[in-house]
């Protein structure tokens, strides 16, 4: 595994919290996200272990002292039966797709490495997911579950949505974050508005893009 990208060290999108860039409802929604991390309600403890390891593989955060919580929000979405509105015909309902998907990943880990998924080192977890995405699977649990569809469009999709809805992720990528009622004035390239942080362009692009 390679290092985490840090194109904008020191940039914190939350610095704008008390400015006209943030309105009441946005503060309320984001505060809720930050302060009230939901408890496990939906998944069984064993499923939870796999889920947590899956989240950590889809978006590893070794660089963060306090990682963005992912698994709790997946669990909350399942508990609320919150869906994306698309049920791929090849897949069961969303809750079932998650349950069976986690079980299949765990089974795949056992089939390939003889250990449960969450017990694998990070690079093994990553290559296992790559194999699943390439539909190169052995466990019988995949029989009627299309691995790529399930992995990309259900599992990773939800985890990624949660990660990039978190202010720390906004800071990481240099996103300006909430902007209402105050938006932006300077729309041209390489110009920032006075109320935007100086993102400090990284010294060499190649470092960042590798």
């Amino acid at each position: 595994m390679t290092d985490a990208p840090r194109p904008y060290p020191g940039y914190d999108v939350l610095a704008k919290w008390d400015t006209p860039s943030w309105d009441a409802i946005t503060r309320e929604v984001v505060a809720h996200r930050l302060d009230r991390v939901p408890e496990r309600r939906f998944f069984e403890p064993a499923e939870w272990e796999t889920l947590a390891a899956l989240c950590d593989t889809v978006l590893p955060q070794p660089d963060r002292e306090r990682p963005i919580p992912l698994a709790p929000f997946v669990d909350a979405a399942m508990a609320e039966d919150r869906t994306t509105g698309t049920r791929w015909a090849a897949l069961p309902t969303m809750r079932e797709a998650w349950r069976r998907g986690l079980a299949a990943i765990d089974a795949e880990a056992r089939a390939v490495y003889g250990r449960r998924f969450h017990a694998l080192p990070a690079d093994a977890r990553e290559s296992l997911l790559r194999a699943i995405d390439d539909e190169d699977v052995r466990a019988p649990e995949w029989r009627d579950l299309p691995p790529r569809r399930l992995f990309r469009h259900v599992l990773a999709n939800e985890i990624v949505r949660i990660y990039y809805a978190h202010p720390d992720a906004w800071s990481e990528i240099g996103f300006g974050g909430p902007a209402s009622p105050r938006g932006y004035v300077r729309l041209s390239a390489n110009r920032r508005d006075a109320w935007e942080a100086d993102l400090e362009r990284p010294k060499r692009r190649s470092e960042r893009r590798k």
Partner: protein
Amino acid sequence: MRPRVPSERSRRAVALTALASVGLVAGAAWVSRRRPPRRRPEGSRAARQVRQGAALLAGSVLADSTMEHYRGGFHNRTMFVAPVSSGLALVSALAPGMMTRRARQAVNAGAVGAGLAGHLFHLRNVLRRPGALSWESMFYAAPLGAPGAMTLAGLAGLAATRLETGQPRGAEALRAGRIGSLGTVAGLLGTTAEVALLHFRGAFHNPMMFAPVILPPLAALAVADAARRPDRARLRLARILLRATAAMGLAGAAFHAWGVHRNMGGWRNWRQNLQVAPPLPAPPSFTGVALAGLGAAHLLEEARR
């Protein structure tokens, strides 16, 4: 019971606009009527008015160019020239005692030059934008016409320095008055063109936005006519329309303040809205030109006697 429909260009607003415009002209006419008995010679009065005009123009340019170039992030060093040059011109007009006459002349000549150069810089900016000389660039690249206001400020400043030395009389006053009138006409029409472009960009969403594209050209016509044949009636008409234009410039600033309030977040979001809403300092440049025009009218008056 019929709920209120979201109001747009309401009849009331149109009526108000018409009323206000008529009011402006009538008010100016009334002010022109009860002029105090002339004690001071027309010439010094002209000098004072031209200097006031120069000050207003320079002040307007200072505020406007600072704001606009700030909006552009002062990404190019030359963008500091406009505020610095107009700032000096402002000082020379407001506190002539602080500079020698030569210095004042240099400062104002500098403003004229900076204004002319500004057109070129802005043209370069326009041409570099995709679409080059398209409407989109006219609206959103550096405004081609804007530096003209600085040229005007410089010219008015030069004229003021010129007039303070002595009272031109007779043929000399006529000549000076005509030159001043010419500058006024050019200033009024140029400023109108700039406003027309910007108000067109704003889709004339408020009927009041027509006022500054209608009144100043009328004033310019009257001034030109008076300069051609400076008889009493013509001069009076020119003065009335110039005064109305001057008042309109001040009223415009108030309208623009209202415009700031109408943007999202209103005055609370001033850091954004001062930049994107109609520019507060722009309309008074009409007042500046009109004042200078009144100065020219006095010179013509002087020549008539």
